[in-house]
């Protein structure tokens, strides 16, 4: 059995490949053969290491030496020094920017620590349908500890001291919420898990429920003990069938083991969890709407106060927390408040899970400490922008959030910083946009979503958002005026100030933040009737440049509406009346003769 003694891993991520990663692989192969090492050393291409800033990166296995910014010419030295003589190539090692020391093992390098998994600790590690695997990873030990060693007040103090804030987006201190619910006296209290994840592009909660359902159940039981509730309800959207099925399995297993039900751990504490299904209305992520929906009423918000902590489900004190918030709880109980609060920034502790999506190479689910910069998330972990295009904006916080730009890239991500920039943490969707995205269209997209999802109870949200959408539509059609820009801003502020619930109070954010950060783009639409990104179809046209066109007829053949005419070997012409701006000709032309104007 031929087994290689050494492996050289070369990053094959898009970023590293663009900077000659492939040549490195080939050169290494050549040099290895020259040294007759081909039976001992194997060169392997890998996925992205998440360290694109210092790419291309090469890792030597088994000794785990990590070389950065490697060029194809370095192949000879890596083979002759590292493999043949067993000496590390010092000059290619990573230099720690703080200590100025050379670091050889990836484990000691900063980038390796960019992601810390707390909420996602078991996702992708255990079998979610097997409670034994969860217990083997210290599952339900936190519940045991709380029930047998701590009073509810002491347990809540741990959560307060940890600095954990609601991960659903609002960022309210979790421990404080629990304490409020605890202090209200009532015959029956409820613990609710908000799994009504609705932001476009966000899937953190689904992944946690699908990958580690017991963590949420355990945390809800802990919450029940702390607040004095014996019943837990998970409000989950029916569009998440797999999460529902895994939750059901988990609930049954926990009941079978006696970890849910009567007299848990022989302490006399009883707690059980049931599921409630949502029909996928965005507004039901708002806690008062969610509670009404669970009661069988219309999913409409009511004015707060009274807060659910005082009067919630069936008029009883109800503690509502988000899935990710719960997923953090067992670890905080086991590891302690001090440990948790050592991670993150001054006012935002711990980590945050983000669903990284859009025009980024490594679309994925990531968990980073609070305070990580957008640049690290997008360019290191995310591997940069697709197809080598230019970064334009990143949308955080979904329809309630805003678009951040180049100038915000180095700001540490936490609740307060994002708010100060005109966006918000939200539940953790992060959509990356490149130079081809039109910011007016992006704002319109989110408004379209809000108009669709507004419950219609209050006028500012129901009517105001519709009017906002119409104005944005007018802009993208090239019919906007200067006055519309003023109106947009004024109406946005009115909607924010007068809407009943969080949905309306935040829905103009995408408009306001894009107007603030991309004022020039709005002006281009209004004053010059142009869409700089070339996205607004009414404001652009495809034109054939006669000098470049050789008359190959390819464009006229791919045109689905026969808008292109011209004789063979003669310059062609696009009829603007017939053209539907599908771009097929633009993509097919081999001579770059078709341009967007």
């Amino acid at each position: 059995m031929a087994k290689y003694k050494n492996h050289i891993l070369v990053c094959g991520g898009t970023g590293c490949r663009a900077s000659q990663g492939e040549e490195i692989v080939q050169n290494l192969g050549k040099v290895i053969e020259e040294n007759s090492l081909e039976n001992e050393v194997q060169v392997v291409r890998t996925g992205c290491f998440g360290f694109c800033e210092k790419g291309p990166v090469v890792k030597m296995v088994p000794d785990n030496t990590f070389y950065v910014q490697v060029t194809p010419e370095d192949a000879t030295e890596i083979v002759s020094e590292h493999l043949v003589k067993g000496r590390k190539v010092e000059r290619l090692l990573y230099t720690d920017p703080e200590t100025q020391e050379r670091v050889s093992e990836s484990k000691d390098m900063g980038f390796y620590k960019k992601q810390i998994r707390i909420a996602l600790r078991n996702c992708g590690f255990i079998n979610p349908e097997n409670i034994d695997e969860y217990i083997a990873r210290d599952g339900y030990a936190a519940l045991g500890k709380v029930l047998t060693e701590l009073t509810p007040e002491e347990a809540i103090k741990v959560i307060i001291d940890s600095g954990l804030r609601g991960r659903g987006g609002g960022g309210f201190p979790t421990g404080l919420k629990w304490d409020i619910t605890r202090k209200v006296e009532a015959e029956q209290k409820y613990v609710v898990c908000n799994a009504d994840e609705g932001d476009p592009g966000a899937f953190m909660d689904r992944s946690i429920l699908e990958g580690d359902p017991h963590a949420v159940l355990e945390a809800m039981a802990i919450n029940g003990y702390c607040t004095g509730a014996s019943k837990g309800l998970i409000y989950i959207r029916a569009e998440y069938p797999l999460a529902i099925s895994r939750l059901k399995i988990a609930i049954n297993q926990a009941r079978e083991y006696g970890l849910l039900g009567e007299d848990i751990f022989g302490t006399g504490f009883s707690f059980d969890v049931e599921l409630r299904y949502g029909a996928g209305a965005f507004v039901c992520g708002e806690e008062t709407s969610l509670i009404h929906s669970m009661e069988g009423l219309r999913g409409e918000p009511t004015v707060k106060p009274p807060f659910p902590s005082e009067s919630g489900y069936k008029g009883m004190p109800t503690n509502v927390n988000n899935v990710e918030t719960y997923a953090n709880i067992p670890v905080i109980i086991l590891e302690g408040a001090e440990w948790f609060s050592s991670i993150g920034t001054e006012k935002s502790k711990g980590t945050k899970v983000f669903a990284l999506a859009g025009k980024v190479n490594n679309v994925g689910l990531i968990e980073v400490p609070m305070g990580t910069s957008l640049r690290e998330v997008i360019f290191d972990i995310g591997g940069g922008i697709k197809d080598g295009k230019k970064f334009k904006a990143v949308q955080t916080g979904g329809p309630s959030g805003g678009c951040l730009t180049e100038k915000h890239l180095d700001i540490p991500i936490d609740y307060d910083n994002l708010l100060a920039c005109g966006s918000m943490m939200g539940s953790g969707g992060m959509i990356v946009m490149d130079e081809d995205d039109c910011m007016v269209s992006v704002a319109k997209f989110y408004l379209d979503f809000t108009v669709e999802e507004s419950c219609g109870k209050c006028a500012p949200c129901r009517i105001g958002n519709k009017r906002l959408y119409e104005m944005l539509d007018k802009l993208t059609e090239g019919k906007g005026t200067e006055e519309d820009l003023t109106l947009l801003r004024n109406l946005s502020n009115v909607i924010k100030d007068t809407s009943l619930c969080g949905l309306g109070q935040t829905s103009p954010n995408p408009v306001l933040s894009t107007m603030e950060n991309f004022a020039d783009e709005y002006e281009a639409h209004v004053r010059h009737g142009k869409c700089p990104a070339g996205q607004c179809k009414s404001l652009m046209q495809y034109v054939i440049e006669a000098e470049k066109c050789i008359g190959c007829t390819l464009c006229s053949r791919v045109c689905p509406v026969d808008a292109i005419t011209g004789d063979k070997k003669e310059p062609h012409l696009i009829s603007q009346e017939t053209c539907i701006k599908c771009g097929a000709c633009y993509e097919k032309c081999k001579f770059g003769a078709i341009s967007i104007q």
Partner: protein
Amino acid sequence: MSKVKSLADLRKLRDELQTKVSLREKSDHPDKLVQVKVSMATCGIASGAKEVMNHMIEEMDRQAIDAIVTQTGCMGYCYAEPTIEVTLPNSAPVVFGHVDNKKANEIIEKYIIRGELVDGIIPVNYETVKENKNE
């Protein structure tokens, strides 16, 4: 399985399970048992993880490879679904991305049987809280 009646029960159960998990690695054939985890969240399944999982079970069964194939949740590498993690005896786990049936065959043939690495490894670039604690 009897009910967990006290915290002591839970601790005992955990310890038993932990040995079971390590037992599973050692099993009856300590130097042969292979562990494969398939990332099976909605997104993984949508990209074909179920087919790959079934294919690997059948294929390794056919070749009489002593292996345990289990499902797990999202590993976070959405850009490279379906993803699987293979742990050979006495080795660190290795994650492979973009695994279709063809890639699965390659992984079985080269990595699982011969111990050679295969293109398409995804380097793990995070630490989890438990590892953190053990450091």
